[in-house]
């Protein structure tokens, strides 16, 4: 027993102290995550595998910068709700997180550090009935199933995300817009690309709880154009207002003059 206690004291306990990272990795591998990290949130769903189309770029445009602006890797929906007994005055929120490869380009030095990327998220919330006709007109994209309730605009020139209804009225503002760039560990130019995570916090009191009911999200990422009401750059070759020059999360249209078709990212199962 003395030998065992000496071994424990001199070997096992120090090993325990030095095992922080393996233990941390093990916790993550079994699904333990942070909450309520309010910049991150309690995960509800995550989507990846977005389709990209780049066409009719303006003359002299930097195609590689356009590419980096649309390098969306994943989109996730998370919620954060501090309970009342905590005494924290932080409003419950739905966090929409977008993870991009590399740094987002910022040729115009926007206040939020990303001046080329504009994100539209169309939300069909179960609590409210969408107006199919109005919502189809308001957006310049084709939806697989009609109707949405809210259009969320995220761009680098506004402090918060903005929420519009199907009539185009600004109905709410986001609660926070967080941009984090994480450098990839390792050495060399390749490792320096890293990841950018952009999180828009939306008021859960207004939108509802995404963990309850059937929700649908349509994500459209385009190139920023502050001259246009939609904040999104349109085709240089085709000046019709319905045609974007670059889009993401859209199925490629059969013909150039067709609207980008968005794929619904559906949260079907309530938690």
């Amino acid at each position, binding site marked *: *027993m*003395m030998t*065992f*206690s*000496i071994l*424990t*004291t*001199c070997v*096992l*306990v*120090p090993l*325990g*102290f*030095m*095992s*922080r*990272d393996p*233990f*941390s990795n093990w*916790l*993550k591998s*079994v*699904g*333990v*995550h*942070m*909450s*309520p*990290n*309010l*910049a*991150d949130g*309690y995960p509800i769903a995550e989507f990846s595998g977005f389709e990209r189309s780049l066409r009719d770029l303006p003359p002299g445009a930097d195609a590689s910068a356009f590419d980096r602006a649309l390098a969306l890797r994943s989109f996730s929906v998370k919620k954060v709700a*501090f*309970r009342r*007994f*905590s*005494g*924290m*005055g*932080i409003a419950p929120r739905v966090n929409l997180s977008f993870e991009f490869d590399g740094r987002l380009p910022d040729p115009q030095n926007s206040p939020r550090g990303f001046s080329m990327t504009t994100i539209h998220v169309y939300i069909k919330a179960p609590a409210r009935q969408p107006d199919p006709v109005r919502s189809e007109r308001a957006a310049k994209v084709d939806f697989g199933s009609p109707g949405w309730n809210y259009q969320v605009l995220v761009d680098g020139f506004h402090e918060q995300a903005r929420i519009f209804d199907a009539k185009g009225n600004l109905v709410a503002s986001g609660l*926070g817009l*967080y941009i984090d760039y994480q450098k990839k560990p390792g050495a060399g130019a390749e490792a320096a690309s890293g990841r950018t995570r952009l999180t828009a916090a939306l008021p859960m009191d207004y939108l509802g709880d995404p963990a309850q009911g059937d929700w649908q999200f349509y994500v459209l990422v385009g190139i920023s154009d502050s001259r246009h009401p939609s904040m999104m750059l349109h085709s240089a070759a085709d000046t019709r207002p319905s045609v974007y020059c670059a889009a993401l999360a859209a199925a490629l249209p059969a013909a150039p003059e067709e609207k980008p078709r968005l794929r619904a990212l559906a949260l079907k199962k309530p938690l």
Partner: protein
Amino acid sequence: MNSSEVTSYPYYRKGLPATILITTLFVAFASFFSIGRGGFAGTRSTVLTGIALAFSAVIIFLIFYTGRVDRWRKIFFSAYAVAFAISFVWWTAGDRGHMWLLDKETLYAQAPMCHIVVPMLILPILFKQEIIFPVVFADAAFMILLVIVVGLVYGRAFCSWGCFFGGQDQLFAALPGRKRWRPKPLKPFVRYFSYGLLAFIILHSFSTLSPTYCFWLCPFKTTSEFIEVNSFIRVIQVFIFVILWILLAVFLPFLSKKRIQCSLFCPMGAFLSCTSKINLFGLRIDKERCKKCNRCIEACPTFSLTGDALESGQPAISCSKCGACIESCPEGAMGFTALGVPFAAKGLPGETPADRVGFWRKLGRDIWDPAVVFIFGIFIVGNVMASSYFVDSMSRLLRYFLGI
């Protein structure tokens, strides 16, 4: 020998060679950990880490050379608490610019991690796979690992050797020369209050998915950081923190020379107590030697010794293995054990021929003692926890007062 006299504590006193050997081993271990934490990066850091190591080395030397475990432990533990408070408050108010924990820090999971949170994390981790504290993930993992390892091996000894808050009520309990208030024998409701509080905060934290104790009941927010006061609820929370700190960590310990906050309120202490039956190290009472003088009961700062404990031969599960009872016992009837291996009953000088053994045999006998292993190990834990705060507080004080 007159049992009313307390001798010069021969029971844990080691010979000089053994003490030097133990101290040298301690310095080697502690240096290893300091290197791992960047303690020797740069001249300034090396010097200050060396000073902190030297302080700890002197403490452990004196513990074994004089045999007075509790006396020197108290000095180290109190100094640790002061260093932590200086370092933490200076970092928050000075470097960060505010003592408040802002909503922004919570948003970005930048709250500093504390071990007292760990009991509240367990059920949410098991059933929701969530860590319900806004902290960097790796810091949470480290604290959970620390509590598991230290809890299983040393149990509640962490409360007397490793907790950076426990030294506060230890300090105020040790300051006065005599007791001004002698608490009556504790009623069960008082004695077991911390266990009830532990159960409540674990369940409430799970139901609300927020750490209840941190938001409403932690007295040590007073010397670390408050939540930003921007609403009436926050005012009430801060008021509760301050009142609890003054009452439980300052006033009552000062009057009673007992560690009131740690022994009767702290849920972390109650949590660690739950491992007392399976700890590697413990404390035992030699019932044959015990003369029921009750000095140990008077000396125990955590109310862990009672008449029943003396009869049974072991203290209550709330024992924090501080060594106060060992020092106070004139008969050498108390000692640390390892997995039930009885402590080496040294006997009084002259009682046995043990004092006349050869050098190597005496050295081996001095070292091969559960108390040595226990104190060495738990002091390493305490030193690992404390060293960075010693270094940081010294650095800040030197820079502020001497400009160096």
